[in-house]
Every structure is written in structure tokens, then in C-alpha cells.
């Protein structure tokens, strides 16, 4: 095989590759400039959990342990306690509440079973996905991190409207 035919063949390959590259340049771009620009997440995105409160600010969780029982990676730890005070004074909505509620994000696989299991709609997935920490122990989140009244939300994401389609996989390009 001559050197010339080899050069020609390579040039042809480069040209065909560059054709694709150049043809994409005028088109819409999908790269997100995170963290400079917020990410858009789906409405049903499963991020860090939220523990909810009712309209009076009372925690909804009754420490029934069903989320912990449903969790396939065994990462929820609860300690229940009796709170016999009247509704106005107590912490939770019911006379039973979770004194301790921890989720270990080193183990959580964001499957959503806990949310499915909860009979009181007390736990849902939030949208927060910024969970990286410098210390592994910090992956253990307590009630102070999980309660909706206390969780610090990042401004680095926006939730898509349900009418909005943000999933590029199914978008015709």
C-alpha cells in the first residue's frame, strides 16, 4: 500500500468526522454551566429527603419506623418518643414523634421506598442533590438537616414545570 493512498484515506476520515462536528455548531447547546447556571430538575426528581410539618408547624412523622423497615439499604435510624403534652405544646402532630431521625447518605440509593412506605406523608424526596462533603461522617444527616423548616436549599437548581420537557434523551436532535 502506497503512502499516498494512506494519506488520502486518513484525510477522508478526518473530513467525515469534522463534518459532523461542524454541522452541530449552529445548533442548540445542552451543556449546563453548573454551578454558574442553575440546573433544571424534573418534578419527580429524587434528591435529599424532606421531613414535613403540618400547617401549624408540627412535625408530621409519628416514628412508625415503616420507612426504616422499607429501606433496602438500611440507612434510616429512628428513635421514637412519647410526647404527652397537648397539641399546641408538642413537637409533632401526634403524641408519638421521632426524637432522632437520621438518614445515612453514604448508603441511601434514592430508591424512594421510604416515601412510598410513609403512611403520614411525612417524608418526601426534595430536590437538593448537592450532598458531597469533605468528611464521610457528614453524610449522616439528622433531623436538623432533613426537616423542611431547617433544610438549607441550594439556589443551584430550578424545578421544571410539569409541562416543560427537560429530558434530552427523548428529544429529537
Amino acid at each position, binding site marked *: 500500500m502506497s503512502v499516498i493512498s494512506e494519506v488520502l484515506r486518513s484525510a477522508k476520515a478526518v473530513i467525515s468526522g469534522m463534518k459532523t462536528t461542524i454541522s452541530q455548531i449552529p445548533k442548540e447547546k445542552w451543556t449546563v454551566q453548573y454551578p454558574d447556571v442553575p440546573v433544571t430538575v424534573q418534578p419527580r426528581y429524587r434528591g435529599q429527603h424532606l421531613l414535613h410539618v403540618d400547617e401549624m408547624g408540627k412535625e408530621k412523622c*409519628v*416514628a412508625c*419506623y415503616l420507612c426504616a423497615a422499607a429501606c433496602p439499604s438500611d440507612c434510616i435510624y429512628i428513635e421514637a418518643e*412519647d410526647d*404527652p403534652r397537648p397539641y399546641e*405544646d408538642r413537637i409533632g402532630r401526634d*403524641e*408519638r414523634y421521632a426524637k432522632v431521625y437520621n438518614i445515612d447518605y453514604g448508603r441511601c440509593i434514592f430508591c424512594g421506598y421510604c416515601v412510598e412506605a410513609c403512611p403520614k406523608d411525612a417524608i418526601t424526596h426534595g430536590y437538593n442533590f448537592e450532598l458531597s462533603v469533605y468528611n464521610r461522617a457528614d453524610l449522616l444527616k439528622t433531623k436538623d438537616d432533613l426537616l423542611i423548616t431547617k433544610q438549607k436549599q441550594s439556589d443551584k437548581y430550578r424545578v421544571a414545570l410539569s409541562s416543560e420537557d427537560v429530558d434530552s434523551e427523548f428529544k429529537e436532535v
Partner: protein
Amino acid sequence: MAEELIKVTIDGQEFEVEKGRPLIDVINEKGFGVPSFCYYADLELQASCRMCLVRIEKMPKLQASCVIRCTDGMEVTTKSEEIEKAQRAMGEFLLANHPLDCPVCDRGGECELQEVIFDWGDVEERFDEPKNAHPEKFLSPIVANDQQRCILCKRCTRVCHEWMGEDAIEAGNRGSNTVIGTYGGWLNCSQCGNCIEVCPTGTLLDGVYRHETRPWELDQTITTCTYCSDGCQLSVGSRADEVHRIVARDRYVNGINGEFLCIKGRFAHGFVNHGDRIKTPLIRYKKGGKLIPSTWDDAIAFAAERIKESKKAGVVATSRLTNETVHTLKRFADECRDGTSYAVSDTYDLAPFFENLSAPLCTHKEIRFAETIVVIGGDVDEEQPLTAKQIRQAVRNGGANLILVNDTPSRLSHQASQFIHVNPGTVEAFVLALADPSAADMAAAKMGIGRAEIDKARETANATKGDLIIMFGKELGAEAQAVAANLPSRHENRNVKLHPLAGYCNSVGASDMMPGRKPVADVVAGSDALLIAGSLSDEEFAAADLASKPFVAVQELFLTDTAAAADVVFPAASFAESDGTYTNNDGFVQRVRRAIDPVHQAKPDWMITSLLASELGADFGYSFSASAVFRSIAESHEAYEGLRYPDLKDETRPVRVKHKLVSGADVSGAVASLRDRVSQFPDAADKITEEPRVGHKLHRVTTMTGKTPQFHLLANGNPKPDDLLVSPLFQFNPDGSPKKEEESEVAAG
């Protein structure tokens, strides 16, 4: 009794069963399974839940299998569309007024109602009328109640009536307003909690374990109760290193007591994880100085040094310790220093009894099916609650004769077929009257009863064909015990069995482990270095003057008076933290199992003693395993010969130790000295007519029970709070006085 075998066909399979057995038992035993709520073995039949319906050929309608007795040729169908339809309809009725708030219900996860409904999966609720909603409330400091969850199976009321003889709870109102309630809205019973245990739903709940965790989160450890000598088998529910509750639920444990437990066994476990437990070894370097926390090595070395220096050492065991510990203490006394004396601190030393034992001890099952029971002295209701329950059932459900000899009326005396109410402190005379008919007249006079009463009791005993059981309490002195132990050998042809009403969980075992022991006072007085495992009783402590002893080492859980007077205190592990065995008053040697790791730096008692021994140069070869200690017991005590832990692993088949029987021993000496003693009793005395309050001994606040706050309220008159919806603990101070407004807010906030 040889049972006649008959043929019964269940779902096409033929079985041979004993005639007359409850059909529901047979169905469940053969693995077919039929749902049931109100049926409870060995309680009166109720047949109100209609869950156990089956089709029996030739019977017109579906039948409740709990009230059907097996007859020959019976053909039973347990599963069909018709049956399930009927059962589901019943289920729907049960749920008509049920809140289904399983997430907050403490029974969730082990609720029989939940299980049955869950098994069907798709039960439809067609009632949309509002439910009779009621908030949860308290019936006593330890019984919580949510009346809406009740399915009116009346297991609780039957248990309260038949097991406890208390009738403290009953059904009130009618129709859909029927509720289980109490007289006056507040429970003043012995607070055994058996109604809580048998309730298939979350209507009656444990107020001590209230809202603490969930049953599936708990590790269940089968072990033996650490209070009285009945030795109930129970299940310790622990999570991580904390004991949360104790139950005897048959899904976890099935021992001699079934699901029965008393208030102490069930609720008094607060001491295990209590903050007052001794955390590290403590040393008092100089007399008059303070107890200073130290390390194990230092404390052991310090104690060993002092014991070595002493002239004469003494060892005192207590009867709440495991056999392993008492045996190790005995070896310590035998092998570490010559001439070391030893004693067991107990309210009731059974040595004379076991030396003259002429018939086997009776088991609790035998009590239930006995024909005649003679109880001489003691206070069974308050001190051996399981024995009391068995007696009550024998009388009530089995028609047994109960002859009660006592100086004080009690709950049991109302059920006695013959209550011999004697002058205070004279029950021993009854033993004399039984053993020596010639002294009967004198004994009757001293007891303040007619001679006819003794003759009537003797007649009943003589007419007994089945088991005749003789129980006796701690009123019996050494001679009377020896005579009582010898009584059966005078009744050659009869099944006479003995049941000592021993004081503590291991009174019998400690007595077996330490033959040749001396009285505590002698050991304390005769030694200048003492090793005490546990604490001395108040009287012994007052007499001992430990502060004046050159050296005292104590192994304890809490800084009791005895521990506070010691020079070295070793933190000991409680029953929930150590392995071992207890021997109960049936002679059953039963396992104690470690449910949680020892708290703080505590170590099991036997380990502490053997560490001390090895520092003194005696190696017991235990290498930190309780089973090795038990092997050593089996090698050195005849009654325990050949036993190993694997033999004891099944609590449903408890193993009896082989106490030596002496038949035909000559007790004439004991009878003579008993006669002398009885003849010195005063001739006339006022009888005690007042019946003591229920729980006067059960609710006592002791070092152990006092760590469960509810006991303080019970011991202080069990006051009824104004607000039944809130636990009394939040409304009263421990002494029973109401908390002030501001105070209760501080406590709550």
C-alpha cells in the same frame, strides 16, 4: 389418663387425635390454621369473635371451631369461599369502629387483628358512618388504653378474672358502645400487665414502653426473670445497648409461665440502663476516705493485696446471683485461702428442707392440675405470683381443693375451700399437727382454731387420689422445714409433692451451689476481709458494721448501703447483660442470656470473682466463658451432673436438677423440738382480720424496682390524676403528690 384416640378429617386429610380436644387446637397444630381472636387456651370459652368458623359435615351452619370438641368421624373444612366470606364479613364488622392508626399504635407489627386483615389484603370498608372516636388514655401508671381499638374478645377480662382473681377490668355499656373499662376509671389492681399481654390488639398497652420503638426493631432474647423464685421465662426486647421492654408473648418465648408475668417481671427493667449504675471500679485507698474511680487492673490488684494480708477471709453471696456466680464464689472461698467461710444472704435458707427432701418438687404445671393444694404460710399472691396464678386456675378451672393456712387473709383465701385462719406467727403449728397427730390438740389451741379444722384438712388430703401438693412459706423455721420435707414419706401411696415458696430468683440454686454455708452474721463476724457479691439485707447490714472491717470488697450494680461501705466496689453486670442459669422453685435450671453488652465497664459477677482469684494465684480455667463455669458446676454438684448449656437451650422443655431424695429419714428430733417451740407460743392472740392492700409487697420500691418511676406512684397509693389523657408520671411527683402547675410545665418543656 389414657386418652381415647379418634379419627378426624380436616380438609380431606385424616388424623388421629385425642377425643374431646378443642377442634381449633387440632386445626392449628396440624398446620391448617384458622384465624381466631377470642380463643385463648386454658381460659373459659367465649366464642364472640366468630373468626374461627369452619364447615363441619352434617352440621347446618358454619361452626366456631373454638367451642367444638373433636368427635369420631368429624369431617372439617377449614378453607372455602363460603368460610372466607363469613370471616371477611366479621372482619369488616370489627373494623367498622376501628381507627386503623397502626402507625402510632404500639401494637403495630405484632397485632393479631392487623395480621388477619393484612393476610386477606383487600378488605373493603363499606361503613361510612363516623366512628366512636376516643382519645388514648391511661388506666393506671402502667396500663395505657385506646378503647376504640378494642374488638371485644374479652381475653383481658377473662385473664384478670381467672389468672389474677382480681376482676379489675370488665366490659361496660352495650351494643356498639361497649368498652372495656374499670370501676371508677382507674385501675387499683396488682398491675400485672397480663391483660396487655393477651390483648390481640393495641387497646391495652404497656405504659412503661409507651411509644419507644417498634417490635420488629427489637432483638428478642429469651431469658429468666430476676425477681421471684417462680422463674418465669421472658423475652427481653433490646435495641442497640438498651433494654426497652419485657414480654412473655408466645411468638417469642414459651416457658413454664406461658404469657403470664407479674408487674416486677414485666415492668421493673428500668434498672438495667439506669444512669445510677456504677460505671467504673471504685477504690477507697484509706479508711474514712472517698471511693475513687479506678481501672479494673488497679481495683483487682488492690483487693487481692488486701485479701492476702488479711487473717481470715469471708465470702457472702446473695440469692439473686446466677448459679455460675455462686459456684465461683464458693470456689473462691475453697481454693484461694484456707479457712475461708462463706454464706448466702437470703430471707429464707432452705438447707434443712433439701437435707430432708423426701418427695420431688412439684412443677407449676402439676400445680395447675393438682387435686389438693395445701399452702402453709407464705404470701403467694404477692411473692410468687405465678404459683398463685396456677393455684387459682387449679381451683377455678380444675376444681382443686385449696387448703390455705395463714395468719393473714389474702386474695387467695376467698377461693380456698378451707381457709384455716390461725393466730399471728403460728403457722408452724400446723406442720406439727400434720406430722404428729398426738400434738394436734395443742397445736390447734395455739393456732386458735378448732381441732375439727385440722381433721377436716387431713380428711381432704387423705381422700385425694391425684396430686397432693404441699407448699410452705418462710414462716417455717429449720425444724418445721425438716418436718415438712419429710411429710410425703408418711403418705406412701399418694402423689405428694412439695413446693417451697423460696424468696428470690435463685434461692434454690444458691442453696445448691453452697452446701455447708454458714449464717451471714457468723461469716461477717468471723472474717477481717470480706468479698460480698450483691448487697446484704437491711437487718444484716445493720448488724454487720462493715465500716469497722479492715477490708470489704463488693460487687454491685448500684451504690447501695453495702457498696457504699466497701473499700473496693466492682461494677457488676445485671441479668440482662450476663450469661448464666437460675434454679427455680420447681427445681428447673433455666438459662439467663445476655441481651445487651454490659453497660459502662461492668463485668459479669463470676468473671469478677475469677479475676480476683487468678490474682490470688488460683486459676479456675474458665477463660471468660459462662459455659465453662457451668461445666465446672456439673462436675462438682451431684444434682447438676452431666448438664451442659446445650441441654438447657429449649425453654419449652425445662431441665430439672436431680435433688437427692431421702426417704424415711428420722425426723423425730425435729418433731420434738418443733413441739417444744409450738408449746411456747402464746395461748391467746388477736387474729389479723384486715386483708392487706393488693400489691403491698409487689409494688414495694427496692433498689431494682425503684428505678422504674411508675413503682413510686404505685407504692404511694396509686393516685388517680385529673387528666387521664396524660401519663400520671407527668402529673405527680414520685411521692404521689400532685405536681404544681409551673413545675409540670417545666418538666414537660
